[in-house]
């Protein structure tokens, strides 16, 4: 075992030496249990909101705390505190320990720091740039949205950045530290036109990046895109009702994948027999055109992590290969209980939450078809370009997703924009109904947030243009 670095083992944010950490782990396992970990988190956040070209909101905050988890068989004990002094932390450890019913025979291994990856170096941390300069990015987006179209009535631009410093300390002797930046930029536009009513649309971007992000995609581009979407749906036609072929545009449409097969392939649901995909490894679950991967190592992506929230390295994990189910997304608990390998998908919202299997960046790999050819193959259908969210029922595999930019396809061409509409389908049916997969793979640009059991985590999704034989379209038109 390598020599421990000099005390304090953690940094200035968490000024604790290894004696404190090892004692806390000892308290956590004082009634037995298979495993314990400590999760330290310090989050510095700042937010700016520009509305009517006025800096309406400037917020800043610091949130810090630590959580203690104890695993005992299938049981999880969890407690946390924001009072980062040894007595309070020890109390949390003893509370978490109550879930185990034995005696403390478990030895805690000596803690030493383990290396982690460096997937998101930041060149220009937003927090280090003067406020006036940061506001300029918001103003540029706002001006571009306004000048895009006279029907733009109101523009709201928000920039939020956070730096999360975390340390995971495990009872098998690991100490993993990470610094996780996050930038989120969003432009919301309200468009109005006499006789055609009003509409709201938004466009965003960001990731685990600094302000250098805007060198690749300008605030103007994001502002114009939000304005385009808001104006487009003014006076749009009613969406049709009933089953129709649907073409998903590249990028954001990956949300369909996230709902249809992502959640159902999280290991906890499958271990408990709650998922439509339980006990289906090795079986054909999708069209042979489908290869689905969850990859927490995509550089600077919103869903990426150098190390997951329980100390396991992130990795690309193939879930479905050429239509055949090959694996689940695992956290430590499910991996141990099912004899699988941890895949680096153990994530949590914050120190206030125990980890569970979660997606990172989930995508459908590129296929052989030209996107134009895909569109041309549809006589009458719906082209879905942009989404506001989705939801899935794991046990049945039924999911919905809400399309905010949709077009009617007639004779192989996008002809008319449609009003916002919900699509509903069944995951396995939809995945088997994938008829064409484009060669234009794209990741979404950094705004996805996924909720599970009340915990929200940032995720990425990606998809090329995809044609699905039939999805029920929830409009009111004929």
């Amino acid at each position, binding site marked *: 075992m390598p020599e421990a670095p000099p005390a304090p083992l953690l940094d200035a944010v968490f000024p604790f030496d290894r004696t404190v950490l090892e004692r806390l782990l000892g308290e956590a396992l004082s009634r037995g249990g298979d495993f314990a970990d400590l999760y330290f988190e310090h989050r510095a956040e700042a937010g700016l909101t520009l509305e009517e070209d006025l800096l309406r909101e400037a917020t800043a905050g*610091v949130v810090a*705390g630590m959580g203690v988890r104890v695993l005992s068989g299938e049981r999880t004990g969890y407690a946390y505190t924001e009072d980062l002094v040894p007595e309070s932390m020890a109390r949390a450890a003893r509370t978490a320990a109550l879930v185990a019913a034995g005696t403390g025979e478990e030895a805690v291994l000596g803690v030493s720091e383990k290396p982690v990856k460096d997937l998101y170096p930041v060149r220009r941390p937003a927090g280090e740039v003067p406020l006036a300069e940061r506001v300029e990015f918001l103003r540029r987006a706002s001006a571009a949205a306004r000048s895009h179209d006279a029907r733009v009535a109101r523009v709201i631009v928000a920039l939020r950045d956070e730096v999360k410093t975390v340390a995971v300390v495990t009872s098998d002797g690991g100490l993993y530290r990470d610094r996780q930046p996050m930038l989120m930029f969003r432009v919301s536009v309200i468009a109005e036109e006499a006789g055609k009513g009003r509409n709201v649309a938004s466009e965003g971007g960001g990731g685990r990046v600094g302000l250098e992000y805007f060198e690749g995609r300008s605030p103007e581009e994001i502002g114009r895109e939000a304005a385009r979407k808001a104006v487009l749906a003014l006076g749009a036609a009613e969406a049709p009702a009933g089953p129709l072929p649907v073409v998903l545009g590249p990028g954001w449409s990956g949300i369909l994948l996230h709902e249809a097969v992502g959640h159902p392939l999280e290991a906890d649901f499958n271990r408990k027999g709650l998922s439509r995909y339980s006990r289906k490894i090795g079986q054909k679950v999708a069209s042979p055109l489908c290869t689905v991967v969850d990859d927490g190592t995509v550089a600077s992506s919103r869903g990426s992590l150098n190390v997951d929230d329980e100390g396991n390295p992130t990795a690309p994990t193939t879930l479905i290969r050429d239509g055949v189910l090959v694996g689940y997304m695992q956290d430590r608990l499910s991996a141990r209980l099912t004899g699988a390998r941890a895949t680096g998908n153990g994530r949590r919202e914050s120190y206030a939450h125990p980890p569970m299997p979660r997606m990172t960046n989930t995508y459908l790999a590129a296929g052989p078809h030209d996107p134009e050819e895909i569109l041309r193959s549809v006589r009458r259908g719906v082209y879905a370009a942009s989404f506001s969210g989705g939801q899935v029922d794991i046990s049945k595999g039924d999911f919905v997703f809400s399309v905010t930019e949709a077009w009617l396809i007639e004779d192989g061409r996008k002809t008319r924009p449609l009003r916002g509409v919900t699509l509903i389908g069944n995951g396995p049916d939809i995945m088997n109904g994938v008829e064409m997969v484009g060669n234009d793979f794209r990741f979404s640009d950094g705004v996805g947030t996924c909720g599970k059991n009340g915990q929200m985590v940032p995720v990425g999704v990606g998809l090329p243009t995809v044609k699905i034989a039939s999805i029920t379209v929830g409009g009111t038109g004929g």
Partner: protein
Amino acid sequence: MDLLAAAKEAVAGATAAGAGSADALALERRETSLTIRRGDLETSQEAETRGVGVRAFRGGRSGIAYTTDLTPESLRRAGRQAADLAALAGMDPAAGLPDPAFRGAPAAVEGIDDPDYESVEASRGIAMAKEGEAAAFAADRRVVNSEGTQFEAARQRTALAASDGFEARSQRTRYSLAVMALAEDEGGALQRDGWYTCSPILARLDPPEAVGREAARRCVRRLGWRKVETRRVPVVFSPEVAAAFAGEVARACCGDALFRGASFLADSLGEAVASPLLTLVDDPLLAGGLGSRPFDAEGARPARKAVLDRGILRSFLFDSFSLRKTAAAFPARAAGGTPGNATRGLGGPTAVGTSNLFVEAGAETPEAVIGAVQDGFYVTETLGFGVNTATGDYSKGAAGLWIRDGALGHAVQEVTIAADLRAMLRGVAAVGNDLEFRSSVSAPTIRIAEMTVSGN
């Protein structure tokens, strides 16, 4: 540190740094959460969390800072930081503390804090959860699995202090028990559904056995479902779905949406926008209410508001900021408006939100509401985010039971329901007498004359 003292410390930090006015909200929450699955404890969580959020104003400029570190130095620093941010923000005359006319002493609201909270042992929660889950398994042999039964107990303390001398504190408790069951048909297809009970007072929860039995009933009735043909039919919303609909309508009546012009109801104040059968109320002072609040998040006097009174749009919901903004830009929309509907997280500005929102009970039994339908859809669950309160578009995934000749028949899934919200409001054709306050948003069974059900 005492919560009110913590809030005052943060306010003092802001005014000392040059803020003309400031307020701070301090929260402390303790929570126990226990999950039972298949008869055994699965997770046991204990939380004790707190924090302070401070708003500082310099004229019409505002800044916000927050911290989870309740030491005096850290609270002062947060106050100073909010004041510094305010110096950089834009000038908006609408920003600021509530007008003195809208201040008021905190109201006395009965039945929202359980005096026995401290003496409730985790073992009691575990026993209730086990009993609830066991009842679900016992109720029907087709119930084959459990997603877990959760018992939660929480107490939250809140303190609000402002530089104009306003100060208030409140304390509330909340208990819940939720059973989530899975049923399997002969073909091995799974269905999932559940039931819950929730109350500020432990003794007022429904018996665990009843919750488990109801979870099983709801789950099993989904078996043997089929899709239906696309068509326009009368649609009956179960109380849960009707409550969600009430929440969606209320969102269009919030001040935030009014001054931004993002509500389909923005210019309809005083008009008959809904069926005369529909009365929609927000009541922050409801005794025993899960959404009750003795004072709102900025210390404005809370009051009962009839948003819809027999179909007439009577009141909008406001916080001070949105009321001033709306009054400046669209005086007609703010006519007669009062604040009192502010909500607030620690790290953000106030926003407008409902407290106890409910649709007043009607005269008909739920059986009669359903019984009048020859061919229609009884909706027990909606899915997704397909409601746009700016445009009035409504399109959601739905599940439920088909109504044939006035009686509930086979289960229906994988369909959507869609209509225009204006038409839905006008089309409310019956309101049931089965209103129960199970959550902070409640409604009885409601029938809507016609919606598009999209299926095969």
